[in-house]
């Protein structure tokens, strides 16, 4: 087992030019094999934190470590082992699905046989193989989301970061994605994702953090947080 946490957010703060704080002294730790839920209201700071974790957004204070590498000092080492699925993926719409997946595989230097095997595995799982030869612009939102998920899994990441991953997915794809998350966490991958759907978080996660107005107001294992109640009750209690 890896001794270093897969994701460690240390006193992370993000201020805008307007002076407002989108995230204020956020600290949390995600170990290898964790499925960590990040919940909060709209505008609470979930996406801002996630975008800082994956190296998209600059931040003001604190540090974020992925497998011991600092996102600030060594972003490339972090990105090589991380995969990110945004809530509304902006893919290259005028590429076909397969062209896009090959581009991502090329970026990560995945060999031909390996990429073929992984693309086939996940495309079959999400029932999108037939559509891979079509332009992404012709896909529905859910299909685009599926391509984004496959592109995230193609390099077998150590840390999977997802922002509202279940939005737009059909029930079957939602079920398959949950299965993939479990499978990955059994292999030692850490999964960190934001969601509004508390039921999903309760059934899927072993750890949860609740963020409100940029500050973590509760964090810990599911048992610690719920203490015999439902996650919904625990969330409403913490949010009071």
């Amino acid at each position, binding site marked *: 087992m890896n001794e270093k946490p897969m994701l460690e957010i240390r006193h992370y703060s993000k201020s*805008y*030019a*307007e*002076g*407002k704080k*989108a995230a204020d002294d956020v600290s949390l730790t995600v170990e290898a094999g964790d499925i960590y839920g990040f919940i909060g209201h709209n*505008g609470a700071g979930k996406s*801002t934190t996630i*975008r800082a974790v*994956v*190296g*998209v*957004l*600059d931040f003001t204070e604190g540090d974020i470590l992925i497998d011991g590498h600092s996102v600030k000092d060594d972003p*490339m080492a972090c*990105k*090589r082992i*991380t995969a*990110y699925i*945004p809530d509304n*993926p*902006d*893919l*290259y*719409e*005028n*590429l*076909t699905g397969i*062209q896009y997946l090959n*581009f*991502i595989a*090329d*970026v*990560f230097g995945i060999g031909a046989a390996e990429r073929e095997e992984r693309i086939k595995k996940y495309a079959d799982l999400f029932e999108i193989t037939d559509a891979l*030869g*079509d*332009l992404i*612009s*012709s896909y529905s939102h859910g299909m685009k989301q599926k391509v984004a998920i496959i592109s995230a899994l193609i390099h077998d990441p150590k840390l999977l970061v997802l922002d509202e991953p279940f939005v737009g997915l059909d029930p079957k794809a939602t079920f398959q994605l949950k299965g993939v998350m479990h499978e990955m966490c059994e292999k030692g991958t850490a999964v960190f994702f934001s969601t509004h759907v508390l039921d999903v978080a309760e059934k899927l996660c072993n750890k949860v953090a609740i963020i409100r107005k940029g500050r973590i107001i509760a964090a810990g294992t599911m048992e610690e947080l719920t203490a015999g109640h439902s996650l919904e009750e625990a969330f409403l209690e913490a949010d009071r």
Partner: protein
Amino acid sequence: MKQTVLLLKTLLLSTSQRNIYKYTADRKKKSKIVGGTIGTVLLYAMLIGYCILTCIGYGVTGMIDSAPVMCALTVSLLAFFFTLLKTNGYLFNFKEYDMLMSLPFKTETVASAKFLYMYVKSLPWYLSISVAMLIGYGIYAHPAVFVYPVWIVLSLFLPVIPMLIAAFLGFLTAKVSAGFRKTNIVQTILMFAIIIFSFSLRFIIESIFKNNQVEDVLEKTSEMTQNAARIYLPAGWFSDAVTKHSVLSMLLLAGVSALLFAVLFRIVGGSYRNINSALKSHAASKNYRMTAQKKRNAVNAIAFKEFKRLTGSTAYMTNAAAGEVMAALLGILTLIIGFERIVRIVIQDAPVDVAMLRPAIPFIIYFFIGMVATTVCSPSLEGKNYWIVQSLPLEKKTLYQGKMLFNMYLTVPFMAFATLCMCISAKVPAAETALYLLEGFVLCAFSTTWGCVCGVRHMRLDWENEIEVVKQGTGVAIYMLPNMFVVMGLVVLVVILGLRMDHKLVALLFTLIAGLLAALSYRRVMNLAKKQ
């Protein structure tokens, strides 16, 4: 470098019309691509023809030695201005920023691939100019055989330095504005300042020469080459490489281009994430209090939406509203300096009676105001949000009327201001001023409606970056080129007629012609709306 090439190839593929044609099942889309390609080929043919004729002109007047410098300067100037107008949309704040930055790409790799994408996309235009001028040069100068490949290879480097300078200016404006709360407004103002300064550079340089009393020297072709090369060294290197076969000049042009590229993207890479973070994320102020709301009719509501769309994008604003700002500045300048002096500067002290240029005032202003109409870009700019207007109980004609109304709201006040300033400065009588205002208004209407015809006919919703429709759209090219040539022709015609006819009568005649063209264009828009 491998990653830069990979990203560049993907960026090119993702905007390739060939790729869309190959994989789309949509027949309408396919025929649109074919139509667009034919239109582009025609534009290339026009450009090549124009450049060959220009070079033949040099040959006939015995100025063929200056062709290499003229070619270098033309390509460089175009590369500089077009990059300046595009850089903010391509290098910063682009749509797929999150996706790219979450992948293991270095920041300088993303920035340099985006720059190279701009370069590769615009290179065919610059090469068309250069190769066409090479043909003219070949006919009249009979250069050695090896000059041909040298000219072509060096033409690949010619746009690099001006594009890098423009990209650096874009980077500076983005970096400065990133420190402000109103990032977008600051960036737009700074870009306008740079564009206006760049436009005035020609006059600044000329005044420096005039102070040094070298106007007569400028008339000598060979020394003109040296003067141009002294101001802009890469043009001199290109010329020396071609005319003097200087290996050093070839190496300098290629080497300095490569060196500047490496240095610039090392600098840009350092602040890239910081700038984009500031440009892409804004805190919600969350301090709104419900107040009395204002009711607008549908046409005005669309016009207001168009206003917010324009002011919300630096790239759109600098491309679509630059003409209005320049017209207003020209108006202020004429008030301060005087109409006569401004005309003297522009016509280079040619023996022309300034009074005879008065009837051209509405067209001089329209040259700026009508450069780009928002109606050319706005149908395409709906992009993926097109579903909003499509799903509303809104007729297409109402949608286009709203878009046209906004362009009138934008152009008419600037036109009126600039016309009044010029008329006051040129001491135009009140009745004539009123007529020029009316003529200007009708010209604005023509620009609006003709722009809308081009915008609707060549609407493209599947763009990746708004610059593709704001700057490079087929509609924009089809609107701009005839508009520009027709205006220049009309200026000459109006001046000639003004010599023989009463100025008021000339204004009235041209108002009627422009009015007729505007009415025809409006009818065409309404017909297009019915067909959709």
